[in-house]
């Protein structure tokens, strides 16, 4: 059911959370955007926070995810793709890319959709603070 990549990412994150961007940032900080998507009823909730510098580059991310192994691996994959990207580049990350990199089966594709949604929400939150 799980690809080796999913298992590897899941276990790395579980065994060494601080080295894998697990945590939280001050949601009220001006340079932080927060996106939380999903619902306990659906079995997954993802919270992504991005720290953005004045060049609109994502310099750091933190996340916490309630969900299956694929949801946690998708969060980890998303973080790796986000850091160093500009907001415009980040907006173009598609769930398909995450799903392909992790070889998610179709029954788990919603995990990567959740990751894309959390990126969009985190960016929108950051931009609303700037506006």
């Amino acid at each position, binding site marked *: 059911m799980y690809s080796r990549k999913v298992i590897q990412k899941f276990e790395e994150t*579980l065994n060494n959370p601080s080295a894998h961007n*697990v945590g939280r940032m001050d949601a009220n900080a001006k340079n932080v955007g927060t996106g939380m998507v999903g619902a306990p009823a659906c079995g997954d*909730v993802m919270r992504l926070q991005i720290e953005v510098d004045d060049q609109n580059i994502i310099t750091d991310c933190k996340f*916490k995810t*309630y969900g299956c192994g694929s949801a946690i691996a998708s969060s980890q994959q998303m973080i790796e793709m986000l850091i160093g990207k500009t907001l415009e580049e980040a907006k173009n990350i598609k769930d398909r890319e995450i799903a392909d990199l992790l070889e998610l089966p179709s029954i788990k594709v919603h995990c990567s*959709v959740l990751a894309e949604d959390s990126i969009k929400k985190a960016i929108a939150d950051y931009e609303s603070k700037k506006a």
Partner: protein
Amino acid sequence: MNKNLVYFDYAATCPVDPRVAAKMQDCLLIDGTFGNPASRSHEFGWKADEAVEKARLHVANLVKADSREIVWTSGATESDNLAIKGAARFYKDRGNHIITSKIEHKAVLDPCRQLEREGFEVTYLDPDENGVITLENIQKHVKETTILLSIMHINNELGAVNDIEKIGKYTRENNIIFHVDAAQSTGKLPINLSQLDVDLMSFSGHKTYAPKGIGALYVRRKPRVRLEALIHGGGHERGFRAGTLPTHQIVGMGEAYRIAAEEMEQDNKKIAKLAEIFWKEVSGIEEIYLNGSFKNKVPNITNISFAYIEGESLIMALKDVAVSSGSACTSASLEPSYVLRALGRADELAHSSIRFSFGRFTTEKEVKMVAETTKKVVHQLRELSPLWDMYKDGVDLEKVEWVTH
């Protein structure tokens, strides 16, 4: 196969007891009891028939029935199908109403759905908060047209036990056929069918250390219960179930049930002690909930919800432990357990349930190891959980507006 893997999923299936495997091996080869039990013309057949009848006695003996009341099937699923569809179709002139519960195994629920398509009316009862179906609840839903009640003895996800003695008295007085799915019961609780007012009872081989692919249905003779057969051809098993009897499978089930009758007490004492050790170790974890009640459950099944973490990730993190979330038949789907839903558990608790089930070969060392690992990974997963953060911050999750997708 990972050598360190610990098996805590005995409620899904058991390994075959070595003593059972040895008996089965005697029924396969040319110099063994391989004959067709239905062959009347030679000794190979007579020997096989003898072995099958001896096994039937062992099964009957464990549940205090007459061996003529035991019908071999391919497993508890077939037994449930034969009992429910067979009785409903035979007694359809008496009425068309069937009562069962929402937390039955799919082997009961799906035949009931099929009967609905055939024009029967089915009532699916809610369990109480501990997974028990009460007589009062049944009485409330019985009507003039009720012909059949199907209630499990022990729930496969929770281990909750129903009072089939009390329920049977009521159904007998009211002329309702009473079917009990006892797939989880044999070797776990004593069953005395000479005292119980149960008309039909389903048994599984592989939940009691026999191989998969063999089971039995108890069909009461006094008062006589009749069924419409599902499988025709050859008139085996007094017309209830056609098909050449699998001697080796039957002998395996007979031996497994013989051992169960002999060793049930000591097995259960050991398992109850292990379950106690396990619960003592894990119950120190914050925010965990036992599904079911210690007052009314078998000790071999412990079903726990770990709040704020999701069950599938917990199973993945418990990588050296074979456990399941809910029943094996449904764990491929993303739906939370329908059994826990029926208990009225909140979604996040239904999504985070794990069934630990112990058996004859479970050791104290394994129990302690699994308890330690569980404590460790629950802590790790909560570190990853935004819901755990929110709980610790005092946020009421019921009041959050979630962004569903």
